[in-house]
């Protein structure tokens, strides 16, 4: 490309030195080009935002959407209350006479996750080893909870592989348990 073919067979030294100078060193240019390629490749795939799916029930359908009009066993039902200052409480069964709890818990690996996994295992065992009939989680957020709490708890559902969960409006009884108005 950049090299000139002078046609000389290397008899005199002048032509020879000219030939050497004409070859352009492309190493630096290739380096730069690959650097830029890497940059654009990484930025294009990284800028795509992540997302998580959330399905809500039909509002007009029924008042208790997660129960699907069939009776749900309280042994398989866990309620998680999201409160202010990144706090949460959970209990099993009904709010007025919970089978277990209400207990305080934190988000993350050493917080609610082992409990979710354990309860899910127990619920599967309770329904006779049917993987589809695991734990049912009802998530209720108070007005002091923030959006991060919601995403965090939905994320926990995905991590713990809990198949049935629902986002439900908080009741006065739950607020009392949470100690908020």
């Amino acid at each position, binding site marked *: *490309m950049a090299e000139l073919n002078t046609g000389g067979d290397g008899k005199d030294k002048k032509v020879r030195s000219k030939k050497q100078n004409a*070859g352009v*060193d*492309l*190493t630096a*240019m*290739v380096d730069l*080009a*690959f650097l*830029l*390629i890497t940059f*654009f*490749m990484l*930025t*294009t795939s990284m*800028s*795509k*935002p*992540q*997302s*998580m*799916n*959330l*399905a*809500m*029930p*039909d*509002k007009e359908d029924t008042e208790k959407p997660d129960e699907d009009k069939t009776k749900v066993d309280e042994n398989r039902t866990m309620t998680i209350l*999201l409160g202010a200052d990144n706090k949460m409480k959970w209990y099993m069964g009904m709010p007025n006479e919970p089978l277990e709890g209400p207990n305080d818990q934190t988000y*993350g*690996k050493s917080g609610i996750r082992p409990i979710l996994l354990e309860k899910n295992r127990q619920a599967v065992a309770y329904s006779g080893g049917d993987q589809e009939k695991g734990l049912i989680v009802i998530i209720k*957020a*108070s*007005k*002091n*909870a*923030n*959006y*991060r*709490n*919601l*995403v*965090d708890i*939905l*994320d926990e559902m*995905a*991590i713990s592989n809990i198949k049935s969960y629902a*986002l439900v409006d908080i009741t006065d009884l739950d607020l009392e348990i949470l100690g908020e108005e």
Partner: protein
Amino acid sequence: MAKGKMKKRSMRVDMTAMCDVSFLLLTFFVLTSTAKLPEPLPVDTPSSTVQTKLPEINLATVTVGQDKVFFGVLGKEERIATLEKMGERYNINFSDEEKQAFSYLEAIGTPMNELKKFLNLPVDVRNKVGAEQAGIPIDSVNNQLKDWVQVARIVAKEKNNKIIDVAIKGDAEESYPKIKEVIDILQEQRVFRFFLVTGLRNEDF
């Protein structure tokens, strides 16, 4: 002597072809990467470990942050069609320039009665005051978000014969009731499945 000469020649690799290829790839990546439009309402999305990607076409985004709600649709033509339909509903006529200006906006947060004024601002001023928009009214008396979502769905159905996906992009510190309000509005529209925009969380969560 001839031997030594040959060795010396083979030391030098011809980089021309490599250079060609790398620049071809570079051009490809430069052209395919889309320039990021300035975000009118910058939000800090919470992170999650779920790795679902957001759809890149046929998506309406509701951005919630600083107690304000912004709305945006992907695609220039869809934006123009959406604006036209919204104009019909609110009896506002938008000129071609205003439609063009709207088609460049990722999201808007201006009530309909002030939208015309906002679109007529010079571009630099508009980008600067982007975050100062009042937000789309979502109260029950004047629920413009409902109309925007409805219109965007109609446009997607008519233009592409597809059901539009709806994403909620909320700020991590946004209070839950505000998000709930938006979810309720979407539920009333019979949008039951939507995407929550999140960032990527590090491994050891």
